[in-house]
């Protein structure tokens, strides 16, 4: 165990961990963004199913949101990692491969995070749609807008504006949940910190740096969110 100082650890260069930690941060952001976007798509479809779907569709959507909001995230990540790997192994078996084929941690993690955040996205989108003033939709109809035009020009922008604060919360949640993906071996911030802690014998320093990186990312995104919220609120009369 070599006694290196805190600054030596975060230094860039052959002996420092700076570059590795930045790579880890990039991986964390990549997992979080792909999970969030996938969750957004799932959330839109599932919110649509809940609002306008028939009984069967509504039941499926309700079941989905109940399960994915009520079961621990870690368990869902295990489901996608082990389950996905089993599925890939089975498919690979038909092409002549033998044995266990692992799903890359990044892929399994993003899919799992997407499925989790999709359940939260659903409720955000549904709530945001329900508070759109029916008068605005009626007015659009009275102007003779077609269904698609109404959706594109009136419903989508208003829903998005109402959904933005909730979406910000989901993003923060996704960012923190992405740390769990490190259990699948994806080399994100936390995994990189574990590797560093193991090889230097300085666990506190490395997990402290990891915490600081997460905090920096979440603070930066909170600032960006506040700016875009203000932008989208232009034209809204207060009070």
């Amino acid at each position, binding site marked *: 165990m070599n006694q290196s100082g805190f600054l030596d650890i975060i230094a860039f260069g052959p002996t420092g961990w700076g570059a590795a930690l930045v790579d880890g941060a990039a991986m964390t952001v990549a997992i979080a963004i792909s999970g969030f976007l996938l969750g957004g798509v799932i959330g839109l479809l599932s919110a649509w199913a809940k609002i306008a779907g028939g009984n069967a569709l509504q039941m499926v959507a309700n079941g989905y949101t109940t399960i994915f909001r009520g079961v621990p995230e870690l*368990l869902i990540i*295990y489901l996608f990692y082990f389950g996905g790997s089993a599925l890939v192994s089975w498919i690979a078996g038909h092409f002549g491969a033998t044995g266990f084929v692992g799903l890359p941690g990044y892929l399994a993690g993003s899919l799992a995070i997407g499925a989790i955040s999709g359940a939260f996205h659903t409720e955000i989108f549904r709530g945001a749609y329900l508070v759109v003033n029916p008068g605005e939709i009626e007015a659009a109809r009275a102007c003779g807008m077609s269904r698609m035009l109404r959706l594109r020009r009136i419903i989508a922008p208003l829903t998005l504006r109402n959904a933005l604060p909730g979406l910000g919360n989901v993003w923060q949640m996704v960012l923190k949940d992405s740390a769990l993906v490190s259990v699948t071996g994806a080399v994100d911030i*936390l995994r990189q910190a*574990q590797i560093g*802690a193991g090889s230097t*014998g300085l666990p506190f320093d490395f997990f*402290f740096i990891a915490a600081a990186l997460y905090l920096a990312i*979440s603070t930066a995104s909170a600032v960006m969110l506040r700016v875009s919220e203000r932008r989208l609120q232009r034209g809204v009369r207060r009070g």
Partner: protein
Amino acid sequence: MDWPFLSDTLSELLTAVPLTLELGVISLLFGTAFALLLALMRLSQRPLLSGTAQFYIFLIRGTPLLVQMFLIYYGLSQYAAIRHSFVWPLLRQPYWCAVLALSLNTAAYVAEVVRGGLLTVPHGQIEAARACGMSSLLMFRRIIMPQAIRQALPAYGNEIILLVKATSLASVITLMEITGVAARVIAESYRTVEVFIIAGAIYLVINFLLTKLVTITEYKLTPHLRQPAQARKAD
């Protein structure tokens, strides 16, 4: 359907339920007590107190729980001063590290819930209590707390569910609670979906019962919002 495997898995997972509940309950008690303190600090007039609480809440809510758990479980052992101190017998056990991390984490979230509840108490009531000559403590106990609890209860219920879900992270630091046992059974049997369904169902049942418990408590605490018996009969 392989019923023997399912029932074996179910009984194996059920043995892990007490540990999950234990982690949840102990962390909830510690966490709520600390949250109360944090909320009062946050509402204090002294900038040092409110600033400290605000900074703590910011730190905890901005970082993942797993990182906090690793900092406590792996990180603290780096320092000889801690390894030789009186807290070491507790801190070297994953169980107490998990409890500590869960409590510190949930306290930050619950503190905001409690603060929200305290802020909803109308100012006029506080003035009235003062005018009646109540001491601060009596006013807090009789006027502020009962109303704040009613207001904060639904959000507090959500935090309890989140805490139950968060106990699953204890499996990463070797504790065999429900998720830990589920991961082991999956690794042994490669039957991910079946194990997931059973483990997930157990969590859903726990959370469903907790939600019901919160709803019942809320009902009991708000007799003044219920319709009187006669009015209900007339419906």
